């Protein structure tokens, strides 16, 4: 190796969840990191690197694990990385405040024969809890370098880098080995046999494999048979040794092995850690006496949820009013940059560009809400209260096949009307129970995300003006009821054979969240929302655009509209006859230009806040288009007044014609045809093609539903009614009733996740089949519920609100039945026959 080439060093970061491993990883590698999935699984693989003199250090953050068995996905991933990639050094991150339990993993890593560096992280927490750790004797007992750090504050980074450098250059350290007491002879016997097999020792440590074989670890047997043909002898020997040990000692070998580890860990902890607060009740426990008190706990929980709702949704909504003008001016800016509009037909690039910008800014409008929401949730997580929420609610959630830790995804998804299913589905990552995790993934989209609200509001304002509050209450709670029932249904049907795990969760000690930690998490999650949702939604918006735009108008329709436009223009010139200002619009092109300037002037004026801003816009237009300005701004002169009036009429006529063209285009469009094609299926719910089109387009992004309805329920000429009034009038004519509204709202509540969410489902389950299931199942469910609601409601001649109450009552009764009576609804969940990785069970 020449002096100029840098030596490469592969370092794996191993440790338990919540040991602060990821924070330490960030501190160690700085910003140069790369996040990918481990091949074939949904566990994040973070790798990054740094240069230290002539060392090029690559750091891989292994998934958080407590041990290295083959029982959980994370452990399998971590273990196969260690075995296959053979890192040069393993940095074992330990929670200094919980040394004893952390040491189990350390022993296993050392047994595997890796040079280990132990990092005692979260030293500040240990200090606060009055734990004094004697580092020198810990180093002596473990025979590996021990470094301390406070990952959150970047303390200890240089020491760790120095230790990595030292160990990396020195080569092997000699780790101490754990003595297995009565089993030690058997371990040594098998170990020595394995040591004679170069095929094995080239791959793994003989001692580690010997212990694993004695434990009866199936993957260890497989590992052995992979590297060596005739394994029966050793496997049988291990089995015989295991059985004879169990007969004589009266405990299982596996129990004995963990006992030995725990015993040594306990011994080391006893000699190296001094607990100053041993006799005192920890602060966390004193706090929990209130927060987890049987009667107070629900009160605090409700209070917390209310605060989140109030701060993020209510206050966040106020904030969007401040940010909206920026987005609107961005839209106006884009409108200026794109090729100018024609009188009737716009260049395709302009129409599509604006369509895409519109879909993007609708989503960006929610950013302030998400920033606040995610910051609050980060505070809950970091402080340790989130784990307590899981503790309080697990009983209920478990009854329905979910998990205490499903709470976070549901809150993110919008339990109380507001949220987004994309981060919600993403947050299911932390649920250790595969079955509950999948049930959560598939039910989070039922929550009322922010984008479902506009359609609810629209329909409620038309049909349920008097009972607004009640209907809103029904809608925001019926989704939770539906989610619980569906979760139960799925758990006992398609998910019944999924891998499951016990609810054994640590309640972390409370500690104050740091500002940087909270801000960072909030930005990260919001950014993910923007990135994932933004790109997918814009892509789908483009597809929907095409489906709505083509094949376009027929020749007769075009001719008809062109005639009307011609008439409108002729009328304008008649009005302008003899007017001195007519010279500004001597030809068609300048007239079209004038109308466009007028339209953007109106848009900007509408967006302007306050008199001054409005005056500034006037000034800008006066300067830029001096010849047009008399048309735009009515002045006292007669010529200007007439010109402005003529222009306004022309602009209104144009608007009307264009709107009718748009409507006809949608009627003719592919999506319109699909909508009509679906009528035979949706007629039972009384959905006509217009509603079908709106619901279909909302698959791209929920917001689209209201926008599409806005286009479909056209404004008649000269009228200036709100969408509510228009829909109300048209719907009465078309035979829509409050029942239709109920059917639409229920369908919308149970509707399949939007496309961005289904992509996230794909990412989280690693399976296209589950993604397909997440689309098909809710569609069928929603349509069934909507059809039943409408058909039964019509048969019984119920009003919308009566039917809504009836549906709600039925749902509630079902919920209580499943919740309180174990049989026949609450049949014990079967335990899976065999373990299967996530997503491989076909729905």
């Amino acid at each position, binding site marked *: 190796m020449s002096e100029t080439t840098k030596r490469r060093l592969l370092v794996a970061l191993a440790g338990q969840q919540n040991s602060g491993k990821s924070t330490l990883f960030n501190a160690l590698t700085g910003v140069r990191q790369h996040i990918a999935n481990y091949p074939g699984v949904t566990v994040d693989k973070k790798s990054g690197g740094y240069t230290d003199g002539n060392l090029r250090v690559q750091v891989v953050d292994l998934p958080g694990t407590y041990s290295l068995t083959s*029982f959980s996905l994370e452990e399998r991933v971590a273990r196969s990385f260690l075995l296959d990639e053979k890192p040069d050094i393993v940095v074992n991150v330990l929670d200094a405040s*919980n040394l*004893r339990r952390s040491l189990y993993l350390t022993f296993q890593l050392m047994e595997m024969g890796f040079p280990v560096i132990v990092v005692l992280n979260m030293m500040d927490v240990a200090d606060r809890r009055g734990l004094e750790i004697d580092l020198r004797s810990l180093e002596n007992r473990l025979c590996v370098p021990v470094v301390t750090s406070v990952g959150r504050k970047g303390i200890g980074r240089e020491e760790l880098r120095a230790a990595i450098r030292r160990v990396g250059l020195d080569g092997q350290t000699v780790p101490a080995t754990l003595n297995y007491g009565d089993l030690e002879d058997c371990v040594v016997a098998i170990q020595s046999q394995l040591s004679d097999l170069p095929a094995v020792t080239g791959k793994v440590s003989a001692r580690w494999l010997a212990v694993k074989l004695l434990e009866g670890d199936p993957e260890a047997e497989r590992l052995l048979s992979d590297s060596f043909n005739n394994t029966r002898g050793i496997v049988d020997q291990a089995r015989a040794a295991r059985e004879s040990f169990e007969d004589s000692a009266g405990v299982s070998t596996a129990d004995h092995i963990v006992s030995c580890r*725990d015993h040594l860990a306990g011994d080391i902890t006893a000699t190296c850690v001094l607990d100053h607060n041993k006799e005192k009740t920890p602060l*966390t426990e004193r706090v929990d006496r209130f927060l987890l008190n049987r009667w107070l706990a629900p009160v605090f929980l409700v209070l917390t949820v209310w605060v989140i709702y109030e701060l993020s949704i209510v206050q966040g909504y106020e904030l969007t009013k401040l940010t909206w003008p920026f987005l609107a001016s961005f839209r106006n800016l884009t409108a200026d940059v794109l090729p100018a509009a024609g009188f009737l037909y716009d260049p395709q690039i302009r129409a599509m560009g604006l369509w895409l910008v519109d879909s993007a800014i609708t989503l960006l409008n929610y950013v302030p809400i998400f920033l606040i929401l995610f910051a609050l949730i980060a505070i809950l997580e970091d402080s340790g209260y989130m784990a307590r929420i899981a*503790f*309080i609610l697990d009983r209920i959630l478990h009854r329905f096949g979910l998990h205490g830790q499903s709470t976070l995804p549901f809150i993110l998804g919008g339990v109380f009307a507001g949220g987004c299913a994309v981060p919600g589905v993403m947050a299911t990552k932390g649920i250790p129970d595969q079955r509950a995790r999948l049930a959560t993934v598939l039910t989070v989209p039922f929550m009322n995300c922010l984008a479902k609200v506009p359609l609810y509001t629209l329909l409620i304002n038309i049909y349920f003006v008097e009972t607004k509050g009640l209907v809103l209450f029904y809608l925001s709670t019926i989704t939770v009821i539906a989610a619980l029932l569906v979760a139960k249904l799925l758990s006992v049907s398609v998910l019944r054979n999924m*891998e499951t795990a*016990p609810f054994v969760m640590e309640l972390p000690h409370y500690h104050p969240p740091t500002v940087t930690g909270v801000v960072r998490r909030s930005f990260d999650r919001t950014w993910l929302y923007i990135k994932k949702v933004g790109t997918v939604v814009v892509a789908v918006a483009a597809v929907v655009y095409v489906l709505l735009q083509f094949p376009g108008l027929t020749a007769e329709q075009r001719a008809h509209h062109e005639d009307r436009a011609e008439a409108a223009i002729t009328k304008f010139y008649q009005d302008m006859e003899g007017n001195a200002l007519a010279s500004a619009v001597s030809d068609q092109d300048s007239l079209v230009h004038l109308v466009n300037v007028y339209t953007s002037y109106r848009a900007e004026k509408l967006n302007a806040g306050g008199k001054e801003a409005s005056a500034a816009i006037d000034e800008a237009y006066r300067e830029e288009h001096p010849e047009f300005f008399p048309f735009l701004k009515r002045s006292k002169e007669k010529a200007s007044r007439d010109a402005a009036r003529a222009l306004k009429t022309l602009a209104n006529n144009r608007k009307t014609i264009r709107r009718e063209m748009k409507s006809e285009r949608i009627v003719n469009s592919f999506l319109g045809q699909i909508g009509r094609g679906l009528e035979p299926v949706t007629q039972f719910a009384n959905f006509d093609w217009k509603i079908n089109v709106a619901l279909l387009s909302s698959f791209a992004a929920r917001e689209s539903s209201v926008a599409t309805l806005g286009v479909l329920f056209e404004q008649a000429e000269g009228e200036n009614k709100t969408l509510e009034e228009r829909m109300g009038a048209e719907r009465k004519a078309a035979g829509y009733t409050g029942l239709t509204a109920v059917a639409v709202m229920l369908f919308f509540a149970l509707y399949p996740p939007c496309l961005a969410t289904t992509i996230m489902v794909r990412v989280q389950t690693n399976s296209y089949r589950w993604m397909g299931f997440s689309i098909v199942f809710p569609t069928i469910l929603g349509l069934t519920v909507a059809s039943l609601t409408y058909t039964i409601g019509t048969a019984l001649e119920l009003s919308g609100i009566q039917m809504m109450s009836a549906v709600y009552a039925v749902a509630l009764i079902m919920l209580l039945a499943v919740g309180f009576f174990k049989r026949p609804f609450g049949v*014990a969940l079967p335990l899976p026959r065999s373990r299967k990785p996530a997503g491989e069970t076909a729905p």
Partner: protein
Amino acid sequence: MFGEAQGARGMRHRHRHGWRGETAGGKLSAAPSLNDMAPGTTCRIKRLLGQGAIRQRLLDMGFVPGAEVAVIRSAPLRDPIEVRIGGSFVTVRREEAARIEVTDV
């Protein structure tokens, strides 16, 4: 694994008779389990019933034969329970607690 399914069913049966029910048929074993311990009591783990992932998870969290466990409280809806083991607070469902055989200290 079938054995576990049996065990789980047996436990449900027992739940119906209350947490400390002494029904013969549904009991996992004659020895008391962590599930039978009242908040405020301390006990020592004798052995873990069952096998596989569930057992491993319990072991990882420190529920190791010989370890001392203090029962702190039940959740507001009685399930799960919170215990203190080593220096940490851990919650475990009663279903799993019933797999942990204990002896009084």
